[in-house]
């Protein structure tokens, strides 16, 4: 078995990073936003850098545990449903964008941000029982794009600086990095 990437090692790393991700989502509540309820989604930085390194399962585990823990600590059942919908849709879209090598980290993150907002408005349409709120869509598109760009750029800057021992690159990613 590859010691460097053993299951125990990945579980431990994911747990520590999940805590960091939780801290990010707490910290960003102190960042003032033009519209209340708007978020940068800094917590998504962790799954974003886990995708091309440790792998999709670790990224999924961190995302889901962060959403569940965040709801338990600061949220309500309703807010949990909203974050879960946004989180799951966003994660699926990011994995697809990553697997099909469609974009770099900023592009993956932008798609994730937009997908998160679209997932949440879909839940809101059911919760409020009306499609009228879809007029929020352009705002959500704009804010998801800008927030996703910010997190994605941050991820792209951080990724090459991470210790390779902890964040092993997949062979294919190394090749892509050389190509880029």
């Amino acid at each position, binding site marked *: 078995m590859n010691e460097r990437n053993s299951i125990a090692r990945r579980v431990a790393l994911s747990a520590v990073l999940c805590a960091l991700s939780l801290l990010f989502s707490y910290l960003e509540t102190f960042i003032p936003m033009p519209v209340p309820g708007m978020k940068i989604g800094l917590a998504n930085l962790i799954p974003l850098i886990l995708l091309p390194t440790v792998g999709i399962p670790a990224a999924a585990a961190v995302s889901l545990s962060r959403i569940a823990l965040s709801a338990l600590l600061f949220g309500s059942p309703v807010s949990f449903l909203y974050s879960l919908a946004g989180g799951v849709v966003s994660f699926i879209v990011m994995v697809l964008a990553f697997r099909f090598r469609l974009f770099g980290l900023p592009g993956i993150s932008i798609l994730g941000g937009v997908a998160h907002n679209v997932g949440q408005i879909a839940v809101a349409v059911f919760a409020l029982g009306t499609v009228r709120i879809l*007029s929020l869509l352009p705002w959500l598109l704009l804010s998801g794009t800008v927030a996703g760009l910010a997190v994605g750029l941050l991820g792209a800057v951080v990724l090459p600086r991470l210790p390779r021992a902890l964040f092993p690159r997949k062979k294919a990613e190394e090749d892509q990095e050389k190509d880029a």
Partner: protein
Amino acid sequence: MKIFLRRDAVLLLSLLLLAALLFLVLFLCRGDGSGEWDVVIRYRGETVRRMPLDEDAEFLFTSDEGVNRIVISGGAVYVASADCANQVCVHHGTLVPADAGVDFISCAPHRLLITLERRDGK
């Protein structure tokens, strides 16, 4: 490793363009605000209250989820206070007939939606 690929830039620009296009559509959907209007309050998708916008009023809307204090004043409606965590409905400010087609006040935690509709139902 390049930080920002050309493809990322294309994606960014197309999404911003799409957002701009949707904003334009919304702007074109704005009404002139003339005529008589009703404040319509929906809870869980059902219309629970309908009242004239031209008569000032102030009341509490209470449900299992919580309480919103709704004020109708001078041809506009707003939520003065709510016992929810995010206060999005309070920060929304006033809702006026000119924005009726494209705007609304929503309180997602309380599953409440406030819209303006023409009294004659058009």
